[in-house]
């Protein structure tokens, strides 16, 4: 049984189709991240699961129950928002217990749950304060607490860390992961931040234009992006793309006047294509002094960006800028001609027309 199952979901705002025949199955206890650029429909999908938007078509099941038309409070979900959305006139305690009071829960049970949530999130000393007197991080903790006290199986997060500064964001990220390890709830988490997605997710659903482009484990998405969009969206700095064509019956790739052998490409035979794109992550390139036939491309060093642990070197292959990650002690001379050794087993080849990985 799936924890959350979205089936053929279509959602329209007037004439605009924001989600298009979308399917998504989330396993029990899974941490799923919906990742994509702003406006791709992530929040809309989450709101549909929460029951805050009426679907145009399709169904939603939570824990095997068809909840397509159920009220948000009847779905067994808790939700955390980017803007915290705490009730400003209530104390933290009031915020946590509001939903439970509405549900008509007994006083001592409410008290027990509030205590437990405040222990887990370490907000005990804040219980009698109003949200206005809390910092951003504390507010978001309370917002998570409000979902926690509901004692639900599914947590929905809509960019919960986006309003926090960088340091708090990484702290709370770790805390969220800890929370998930402890509670083992199903989590559906929306973000546009790929670091959050890569660090938190069991599986990532990369979205664009209301369509899930790829749904897979973070490593899989990173190593084998299913299309050009996913390849470019995931990874910082981005994957390098070299336009060219496959030659010798698809056993080699020709770009900028150089031919690279494709033997060892894990996608197997790529076939003959007039227009193809070779995608290489910066860490899968290496600067060498001497050319190796079929394995290197000539390039010229432009600038480098030391980043503490390692350094990012920007080179030009013909006119195309290419980045390479190198150990920080290997800083090259600017303007130097070098050769880039390609690790073809880690590369991705895309069809330039369909933009799909081959």
């Amino acid at each position, binding site marked *: 049984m799936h924890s959350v199952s979205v089936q053929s979901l279509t959602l329209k705002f007037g004439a605009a189709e924001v989600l298009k025949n979308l399917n998504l199955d989330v396993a029990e206890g899974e941490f799923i991240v919906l990742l994509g650029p702003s406006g791709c429909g992530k929040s809309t999908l989450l709101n549909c699961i929460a029951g805050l938007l009426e679907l145009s078509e399709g169904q939603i099941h939570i824990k095997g129950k068809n909840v397509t038309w159920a009220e*948000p*409070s009847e779905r067994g979900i808790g939700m955390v928002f980017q803007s915290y959305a705490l009730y400003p*006139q209530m104390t933290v305690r009031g915020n946590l217990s509001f939903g439970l009071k509405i549900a008509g829960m007994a006083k001592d049970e409410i008290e027990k749950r509030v205590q437990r949530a405040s222990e887990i999130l370490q907000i005990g000393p804040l219980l009698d304060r109003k949200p206005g007197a809390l910092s951003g991080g504390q507010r978001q903790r309370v917002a998570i607490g409000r979902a926690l006290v509901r004692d639900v199986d599914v947590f929905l997060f809509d960019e919960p860390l986006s309003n926090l500064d960088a340091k708090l964001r990484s702290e709370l990220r770790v805390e969220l992961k800890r929370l998930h390890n402890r509670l083992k709830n199903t989590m559906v988490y929306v973000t546009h931040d790929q670091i959050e997605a890569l660090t938190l997710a069991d599986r990532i659903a990369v979205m664009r234009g209301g369509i899930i482009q790829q749904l897979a484990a973070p490593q899989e998405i990173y190593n084998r992006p299913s299309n050009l969009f996913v390849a470019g969206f995931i990874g910082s700095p981005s994957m390098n793309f070299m336009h060219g064509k496959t030659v010798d019956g698809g056993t080699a790739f020709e770009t900028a006047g150089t031919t690279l052998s494709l033997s060892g490409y894990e996608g197997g035979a790529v076939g003959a294509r007039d227009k193809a794109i070779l995608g290489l992550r910066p860490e899968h390139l290496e600067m060498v002094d001497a050319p190796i036939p079929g394995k290197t491309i000539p390039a010229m060093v432009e600038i480098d960006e030391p980043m503490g642990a390692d350094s990012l070197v920007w080179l030009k292959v013909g006119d195309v800028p290419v980045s390479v990650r190198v150990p920080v002690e290997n800083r090259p001379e600017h303007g130097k001609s070098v050769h880039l050794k390609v690790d073809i087993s880690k590369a991705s080849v895309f069809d330039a027309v369909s933009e799909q990985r081959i």
Partner: protein
Amino acid sequence: MANTTAFDQVPSGKKPTPFITWQRFVVYSVLGVCALFFLLPLYIMVITSLKSIQEIQGGNIFVPTMSPSFDAWEKAWNSACTGLYCEGIKVGFWNSVKITGPSTVVSIAVASVTGYSLANWPFKMSEFYFTVLLLGSFIPYVVMLYPLVIITRWMGIYSTLPAVVFVHTIFGLPILTLLFRNYFASLPQELFKAARVDGAGYWGIFFRVFVPMSVPIFTVAVILQITGIWNDFLFGVIYAGPTNYPMTVQLNNIVNSAMGGKAYNVDMAATILTGLVPLTIYFVSGKYFVRGIAAGAVKG
């Protein structure tokens, strides 16, 4: 360049100007004249109400009396003639209270719920409905007067307090609904969603989440309605019926009563008494009023 030091250079930007410039002088003069223009009648009213009739007839209207007396005020409140009765303007005062209280409460109750629905529970045609409501505020009152007479008569409430409360509620709706709709629309949408996830329904969200957050806008609405309804003459004279005439109508009757000579001191006292309620509200609530308007204007 080599020889110039930092001290030789002319500072960039404009030098701050002294407080008194001729522009400022003109502005403050005009403002002063305007203030005098509006304060002078009030001054004359107050000193006249404290004079005796003999003093008024004999003296200069700008000169205050040497022996002020509150007799005229007493008469205006308790025994001035307002048509058939001579029970003073206090009758009108209590009528106005009876009209203003319920009208304010009912109109704000209806408008706040309407605004809340339009902002947070959009239904089919809700934008159209809102537009029609707004158009309503552009229709001149006089066009609606007679139809409303017929409607209230049909409802069986013509010439009673409920009729005038009904009419005030109707005419208050467009502007108040706009006020509330915009305020509720400016509250974070995520708050509304959070309350729904918490299981709060239509009324639960309204009363337990939104109303406690909306004190500023309710304050503005209360002030608008109390002052507006208290100052009303037309609806009072048409729909309330003679026994329920509000203070403004009775003031008019006192001032225009044909019996005896003109008792200017009583007229002035009655006028000040009538204006006292809105005046007090403005003085007491000015701060909150501005705060409420600002709260409505600033998003979030």
